[in-house]
């Protein structure tokens, strides 16, 4: 049996997926990127392999992607997140024409052609406004785990207008609004809205075409999904594995290579 792996070393979280010959996910793992990207990559890869009850030497080919892709010492090939998210999204939702990936530090809008090829893409520039970090700040300020931000925001009745775009200052603006007596859910809804609009304009930059698939860690955030659907005024495909989409795409590229006979170059080195 042939196994391949995709490793997505993001700015905040590292994701890995192991696929079998038939492209079924047999193992996956998610770790926070702490200090060292290379080790994070190693660890998440190991966990995914373990999750698949395999040995690292069983992995025929590994493709690395994400912000830290060049740090994946054991990878056989690097592919950008853009291609990987596109690949993953079209694999899960074949009619995908637009992909929005909101990650921890960058946001990408990808336009996809008739045969699943990337035709255009846009990313946020050198400012972390409107990325997952914005929510990270909220989660810190409100002492609420990331996973509960969305559900809480959905309870909003009178969303607050967030004026700062700066991710760092977002924290204190939230505090300010709370001090003024606004309810946390309303403030959160405001945060989500400001991210949603920023990301929407990124999507429009590549031209919105249905179907739209929303990937990346923030796709796990229900409120963001709802808001984006409103702002873009189109339904979004959401996968339970949305956070892993980059890794899945990478694994699929790995599968291509493996099928075409390529084998990982430095197996024993990694086995060590």
């Amino acid at each position: 049996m042939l196994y391949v792996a995709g490793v997505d070393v993001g700015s905040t979280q590292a994701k890995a997926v192991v696929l079998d010959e038939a492209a079924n996910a047999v193992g996956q793992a998610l770790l926070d990127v702490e200090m060292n990207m290379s080790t994070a990559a190693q660890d998440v890869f190991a966990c995914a392999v373990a999750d698949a009850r395999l040995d690292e030497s069983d992995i025929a080919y590994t493709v690395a992607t994400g912000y830290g892709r060049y740090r994946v010492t054991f990878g056989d090939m690097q592919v950008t997140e853009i291609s990987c998210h596109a690949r993953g999204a079209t694999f899960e939702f074949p009619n995908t024409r637009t992909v929005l990936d909101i990650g921890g530090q960058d946001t990408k809008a990808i336009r996809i052609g008739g045969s699943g090829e990337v035709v255009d893409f846009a990313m946020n520039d050198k400012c972390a406004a409107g990325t997952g970090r914005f929510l990270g700040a909220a989660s810190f300020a409100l002492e609420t785990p990331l996973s509960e931000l969305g559900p809480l925001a959905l309870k909003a009745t009178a969303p607050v207008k967030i004026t700062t775009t700066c991710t760092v200052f977002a924290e204190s603006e939230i505090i300010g609004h709370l001090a003024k007596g606004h309810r946390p859910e309303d403030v959160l809804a405001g945060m989500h809205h400001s991210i949603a609009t920023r990301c929407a304009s990124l999507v429009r930059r590549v031209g919105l075409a249905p179907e739209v698939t929303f990937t990346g860690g923030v796709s796990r955030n229900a409120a963001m999904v709802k808001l984006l659907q409103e702002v873009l005024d189109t339904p979004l495909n959401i996968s339970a594995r949305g956070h892993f989409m980059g890794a899945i795409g990478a694994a699929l590229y790995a599968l291509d290579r493996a099928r075409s006979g390529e084998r990982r170059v430095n197996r024993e080195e990694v086995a060590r």
Partner: protein
Amino acid sequence: MASTASPAPTAARSLDARTAGQRLVNQWLANIHTARERGQPVAYIFVMGNAIEILRAFGFELVFPEINSLQTGVRKAAPDFLAKAEDFGFSPDVCSYVKADVGLMLSDLQHPSGTRMPKPDLAIASSMCNVYIKWAEIWERHFGTPAFVLDIPGKRFAAWQPIPGTPQYEADKRWVQGQLADLVARCEQITGTKFDPDRLAEVEASVNEMIRLWVEILQLNQRRPAPYNSMLDGLTYIGVLNAWRGTPEGVEYMRLLRDEVAGKVARGEGRVANERFRLIFSGTPCYVNLRRMVELFETYGGVFAASDYLTYAAGGLDSSGLFYDPSRPLESLAEVTTRASQLGLSNHFFSHHTLAQQVKDYAADGIVYHGIKSCRTVATSMADNREYVTKRYGLPTLYIESDLIDPRYWSDAQIKNRVDAFFEVLEQRRLVEGGA
């Protein structure tokens, strides 16, 4: 996949014309350096808008502030100059060419090229970029040299056809000619010499020849593989073309260059060893990271076959087959200047067509847009232009943003990421089209 494409050697091949060009540039700088002591009048002038011919006719030494500024970038001295200007109070959002030039003024005009830039006796700002005018106002304040604003109206709307003879064309021509007359008067007063039409005619004849050769050189890059990279070699060529525009030396250089490029074409020599993708570059390059930028593309076998920048830098003459009629020097200068603006430089209504046309002419695979943060002339509607080009013509395009000379705006990781992805796009497209 792109990432496995065997990288092509990126070392720039040296042309013999390069040595010639280098010599000319040095000589030009030397002339500028000594202009004052030789008592030669000095004019500051911008590359867009064609008053150069008159200045040549009056024997001015020409200083191109834009070239000075980009050279601070090329010579990695920009940060100091920019800092000087910002300490002086200029907002970081102001055109970085202006800031670099202000930095130069505040450095006693000591240019990193070793040249001591002379003060201007005359400063001409065409309206091709409105910042030129604000820039000239800065000189006015600093040097006390009154600005001469040359207002060159351009295309008024998409369908506008200002055919010679129509009232509208005549109005614009009359306007430009009137201002050129003012300029001639101003020059006579500054130099104390009478205007000599025959001299202008000579200059125009040389310009005609240079442009004819330049257009040939541009067209030679339509061949596959492209003999040179417009965003590297092309920039050197254009520098010489401007510095020596309207001179026998300039004509000589262009001829040498044309022959060399033609030779490469004949021998099938390409700029990159295995040319895999031909690209059109839109916008101004980032001079601080010029080689790096070109290298990012050439490692994937991508070469810039053409660029609209070369049109701006040639004063728009190449774009429209415009030539002077030396038998009516001043009038035809007015005509050509007006036409160059209408058909080449003030391209707000047709820049997208021009690019699409270049893609056809140069059999290009896509367009790379380089938005210049602090240059509204280049960057304001580039994204809209790109949107149109991608939608209407279905061309693959890449949009990257940095600055002309301000390294703070160059984020290598981000740009590499985009370039990597862009070539993945081009590769995928090939696969889909079953090509290559």
